[in-house]
């Protein structure tokens, strides 16, 4: 596109650049504040209203939370549930997407329309809760994984992706005597690695961030996940679980909240560049309607 360097255009550009930079900075500020605060002393947090760099560097908040069993337990639990859940959910999604990508399969259309209907209508919170209860999954980590095993959007996008792979690949494999499952495992999955990695990350983020499922299904607070723990710490700090810390040590109340938020955010920030690489291409959204 040709650019007309009129004065008005340049003023607009400058204003636009300044405005967008501010938008970016304002988006980031809460993190910077919390990150800085998590390394500050409690006195500094109370004294200074807002800061992006601590005057006195302190690891006290982290030492405190990592010596609190309730926190470390929640952290380990969340990591394990996220890892297992991602594998299970991805396996469910891929094994269903592959047959549905075969246009000659009978019953395909019926199943697809039932999947689409499930996108716009659901039984809702209470019937799902009662189902999970009847299945005996209350206070089980499977309750955080199975009810969300297949995201219909992800299923359809992965199905469309399989459908667009060249048919010759499969035909030649069939000539060589490969079965359908062999084709999926040895030909399609290696080809789909980037796509599957993206959806694995989306599933992982979903499980890591999930608050509603543990709230509904885990009443036993020794089984709580990190999000539940975070909620408890930030909403009512006086409820904080008692750790094996020195009884004379007064916990840095605000600092603890800062540190727990940082720990809950960090994995997302670490994986974010990998996520962004794929969704930025518009791959995820462009094919939803198909």
């Amino acid at each position, binding site marked *: 596109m040709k650019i007309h360097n009129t004065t008005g255009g340049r003023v607009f550009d400058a204003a636009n650049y300044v405005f967008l930079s501010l*938008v970016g900075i304002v988006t980031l500020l809460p993190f910077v504040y919390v990150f800085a605060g998590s390394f500050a002393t409690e006195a500094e947090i109370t004294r200074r209203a807002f800061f992006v760099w601590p005057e006195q560097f302190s690891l006290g908040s982290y030492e405190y939370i990592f010596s609190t069993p309730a926190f470390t337990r929640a952290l380990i639990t969340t990591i394990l549930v996220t890892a297992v859940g991602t594998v299970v959910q991805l396996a469910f999604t891929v094994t269903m997407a592959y*047959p549905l990508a075969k246009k000659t399969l009978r019953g395909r259309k019926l199943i697809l329309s039932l999947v689409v209907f499930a996108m716009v209508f659901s039984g809702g919170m209470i019937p799902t809760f009662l189902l999970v209860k009847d299945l005996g999954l209350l206070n089980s980590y499977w309750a955080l994984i199975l009810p969300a095993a297949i995201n219909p959007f992800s299923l359809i996008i992965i199905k469309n992706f399989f459908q667009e792979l060249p048919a010759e690949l499969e035909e030649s494999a069939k000539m060589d*005597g490969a079965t359908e499952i062999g084709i999926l495992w040895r030909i399609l999955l290696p080809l789909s690695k980037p796509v599957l990695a993206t959806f694995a990350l989306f599933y992982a983020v979903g499980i890591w961030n999930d608050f509603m499922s543990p709230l509904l299904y885990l009443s036993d607070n020794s089984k709580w996940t990190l999000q539940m723990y975070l909620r408890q710490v930030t909403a009512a700090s006086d409820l904080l679980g008692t750790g094996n810390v020195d009884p004379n040590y007064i916990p840095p109340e605000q600092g603890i909240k800062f540190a727990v938020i940082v720990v809950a955010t960090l994995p997302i920030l670490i994986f974010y560049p990998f996520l962004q690489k794929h969704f930025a291409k518009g791959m995820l959204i462009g094919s939803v309607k198909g």
Partner: protein
Amino acid sequence: MAAPVVEAEASGRAATRPPARERKNAKFSVHFAHYKWLYLLLLPGVLYFAVFRYGPMYGVSIAFKDYVPFLGVNGSRWVGTQHFEDFFSNPDFPRLLGNTLILAFLNLGIAFPLTIVLALLLNEVRLSVLKRTVQTLVYIPHFLSWTIVASLSFLLFALDIGPMFQFLNNVMGTNIDFLSDPAWFRPLIVLQEIWKNTGWGTIIFLAALSTVDQDQYEAAIIDGAGRFRRVWHITLPGIRSTIIVMLILAIGQMLNTGFEQIYLMTNALNRDVADVFDTYVYFVGITQGAYSYSTAVGLFKSLVGLVLIFGTNWLAKRFNQSGLF
């Protein structure tokens, strides 16, 4: 998933028969035998949908029953529309409807247009380093949990010690209790929504903007159209169908105010303005055990949502837009 694979490879059946499509009227048993591995692969997914998606849809029938856990869904007594009548005559109903709709319209009226404006502004940026940096930053909050968003809000807006409180106190001398003053509940919810999802929402509009015909801009420039006229006459019409599709989706989701966000921001002092259908179902159903009544409330909400989706889609088609379905 390793087991079925091993099994399949061990059987090593060569698929040399012609595909079923060539034998148009082949019996289903033949078709099934030919595709048995595919049907096997389909099984876990179909079971999942049957149990966890359609199971609860069957469970919705307790909205018309007096559900007793001991008797189960089928054994409980049928009471017809009793729970719906109770709900509609309950003073909670107009309050919930009002709260839900106000939040929905605030999001539609403020967050939705802001997304389009942000996308348009980003689209005007020719300095690609700046564009990519800003995009990277504004997408991040979408991936954070509502728990983190709520916790950040609690810290930033806390009474006396929160930076926002102190800032406004220093500048304007106000003492605003953002977190418990009911008047601040809705502004905070909308602010959270803007911070979390505006950036992410631009992706789809930016994708649509990239498909707008560039020749039209050149022609418009030659005709002497300025920046804003080009945006108004070329860019916006170019992404109109995307805007309509996104609007349909947003309206269809109107009653889904987001359970987690509202639940996390609700407290004893702001319940009057904070209660929406989603959180009401939780408080009445899970914490008070009124399963049938709360299911009726949830069903009402889902049905209205369905009507909204199909209604707006129908409207969009009437006005010659593509619609969703």
